[in-house]
């Protein structure tokens, strides 16, 4: 029996490369559940021609497959790149040579991207440069079609793959396995179009949301009952650099590793799905403020309104929230006026 819903159609071929990243998006993908990653690919009718961590083929077998794909002898439906493109030193790409080929990985990526019907950047590194492009960017790391917020990268901001789409940027550091599997399923079903992408060409399926949505600390946020130190239970926006109200992702709606999220782990959102998250311009775990008011206010909210509402809500903060906000465990439960806790 086959799981494939599209049995009559030929499977879509997928080829996966890793360059200047950490392999963490692949490891995260391997944590896919209900079903597992391999079953999910099978269900999507995707034939993984090669993945550097999971495939049987090695050495010459892989090099000849790459030559076939790059030369057009074998069609390629989906190219996935994980990790940023290493363009240094001086634009030569020699900071990452593809083993066994004597050729920069940058050249292989370019050639395969020209042939692929869809090009998918897996993770913020492949999309925008990501962590590898932080600091002085010693390796000249760039994304596939962005260099930070600037269109360009290896393929140029105007790049369109053979299917007419820009690079699909499944950003995140790492990606959630669901973001990858669902995007690949939609591509394989031949239903993907530019309307499925946001302004950074990320799948709207998960960037339609803010990390703030579904955050278990929303009640603390409402009353500006703020955490003061890591581990405190209150809202982390005011003091600890949390960008959940600006960050685009469904992390608190879709569980990580069964039940978690960064916020549930008691640490602030660092907005890892956004270009240039790697250089926030301030300490990651501190909120920059002017005259006591955070600079990075929630997306879509006029500053004056925020200030007015915050001072009102602070004045109205229930004792329970005020107490729990700066405690490292929730200690005051909600109460029932008609039946006091003995």
């Amino acid at each position, binding site marked *: 029996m086959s799981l494939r819903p599209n049995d009559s159609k030929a499977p879509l071929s997928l080829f996966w490369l*890793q360059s*200047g990243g*950490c*392999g*963490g998006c*692949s*490891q*995260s993908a*391997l*944590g*896919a*559940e209900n079903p*597992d990653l*391999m079953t999910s690919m099978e269900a999507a009718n995707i034939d*993984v021609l090669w*993945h*550097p*961590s*999971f*495939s*049987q083929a*090695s*050495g*010459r*077998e*892989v090099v000849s497959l790459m030559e076939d794909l790059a030369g057009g002898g074998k069609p390629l439906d989906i190219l996935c790149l994980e990790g940023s493109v*290493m363009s*240094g030193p001086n634009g030569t790409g020699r*900071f*990452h*040579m593809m*083993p*066994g080929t004597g050729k920069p990985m940058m050249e292989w990526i370019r050639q395969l991207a020209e042939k692929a019907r869809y090009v998918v950047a897996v993770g913020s590194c492949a999309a925008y440069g990501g*962590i*590898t492009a*932080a*600091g002085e960017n*010693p390796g000249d*790391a760039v994304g596939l079609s962005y260099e930070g917020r600037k269109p360009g990268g290896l393929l140029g901001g105007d790049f369109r793959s053979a299917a007419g789409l820009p690079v699909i940027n499944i950003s995140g550091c790492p990606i959630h396995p669901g973001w990858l599997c669902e995007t690949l399923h939609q591509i394989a079903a031949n239903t993907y179009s530019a309307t499925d992408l946001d302004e950074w060409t990320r799948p709207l399926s998960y960037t339609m949301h803010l990390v703030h949505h579904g955050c278990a600390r929303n009640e603390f946020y409402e009353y500006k009952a703020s955490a003061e130190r*890591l*581990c405190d239970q209150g809202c982390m926006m005011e003091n600890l650099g949390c960008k959940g109200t600006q960050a685009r992702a469904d992390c608190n709606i879709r569980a*990580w*590793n*069964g*039940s*978690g*999220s*960064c916020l*549930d*782990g*008691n*640490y*602030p959102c660092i907005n*890892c799905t956004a270009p240039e998250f*790697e250089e926030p311009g301030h*300490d*990651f*775990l501190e909120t920059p403020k002017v005259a006591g008011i955070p600079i990075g206010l929630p997306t879509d909210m006029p500053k004056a309104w925020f200030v007015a509402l915050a001072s009102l809500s602070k004045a109205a903060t229930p004792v329970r929230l005020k107490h729990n906000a700066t405690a490292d*465990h*929730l200690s005051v439960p909600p109460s029932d006026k008609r039946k006091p806790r003995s």
Partner: protein
Amino acid sequence: MSRLVVGPFNRVEGDLEVRIECGDGTVTSAEVVSPLYRGFERILLNKPPLDALVYAPRICGICSVSQSVAAAHALADAMDITPPRNGSLAVNLVHAVENIADHLTHFYLFFMPDFARPVYQSEPWFEDISSRFTAMKGTAVETVLPARAQFLHIMGILAGKWPHTLSIQPGGSTRTVAAAETARLKAVLVAFRRFLERTLFGAPLKQIVSLESGEALKAWFANKAPNTSDFGRFLHVSESLDLSALGRSSGNYLSYGAYQMAGTPLFAQGVWRNGDPTDFSPHSVAEDLTSSWYKPDGPEAPAAGTTDPDADKESAYSWCKAPRLDGEIMETGALARQLIDGHPLIRDLVARHGGSVHTRVVARLLEIARTVLAMEDWISQLEPGGAFIDHTAMPDQAEGIGLTEAARGSLGHWLSIKNGKIANYQIIAPTTWNFSPRDRIGTPGPLEQALVGAPVREGETDPVAVQHIVRSFDPCMVCTVH
């Protein structure tokens, strides 16, 4: 004599090329090439010290918690703080989950698929092994992936997410647990233990950890049909191909000690030189850069180390540096840890065969069993409601060293802080030790030595024996070059 360039190596973490000289059907000399440079040590310069906890884990997505632990230890050393007991327990649990998941990924997804290659078609075990372990399609994949993913639920509870959690801090763990959550942790671990006992070992964990010699292991295995467990399958293949004689290393081993609790590690710290245990001193470590694409040639003590790339350096062939302890190469990993900790099975196997493909894999699987038993104990020691973190402030000037054990071996971070910013940051990863290139006196690294003598079959372009040896170290190339 002939020369082969072997690569790309897949089913390792990151990028690797091995250049070998062959003669008379064996490898006579090898050069191990790490072909990627990213420059994390430079990325970290001038950053606020605590931001190292954002960048350092992203050196590696397969052992990101190990990188966090090393960074947190280095920062804690600089701050002169010790986490509260709960914090150490939580960090150890999170770290153990990653290390065990890595061992599992290595065995099932990286190492065993090589025995499903057509070169072994005529072996009596081939049908069973290939249907079980063929990459992405074998029957093992559909049980192992869900078991691994469920085990990682401990990360969801204790670390928010994996990889790249921020829960590990110098003062402990950000994530406190409530009483009901310890019950969830326990239940996840019981389910995982069940998978290990039914599928991987086909025996109770306590039986596995009590095996005291190679003979005892043989006797245990002789009573079972090989296909009743995946460990049995490995032992059968190993015996048939004599993996005890393959990939022997130098006899020098290093472990920084794993899973600290009030200054004492679960697995001991130390050095093993040709049969003798000695103490480890971090001041005996230096990195040689002669064969690495960096200026100058070194050797450099890591606290004063540099990372100045020079892609045109004539004497170089790798982005990996060459760490040495008192000028000597060291093998690190589960084999080194279990040997130095004194587990009788591993001491016996090393005495008989030295470090080899067989010993490395047995040590890794044994370590899974030992660590899961320790995790049960740690969960029962958690005190819900107690403190998990110390909030001491960061000094403006300080130095720190953070030593820990990743799945693949010894990981060290050397940090200095000036004017409230990171002034230097040097990292020596396990595979930097294991896959180091030649130093200034021409001594090859551990893998380069272990490859010599490996058989090369007629017409092989990617010799399968070379693949077994390379993967027996479970290399993590992204960590190596950072």
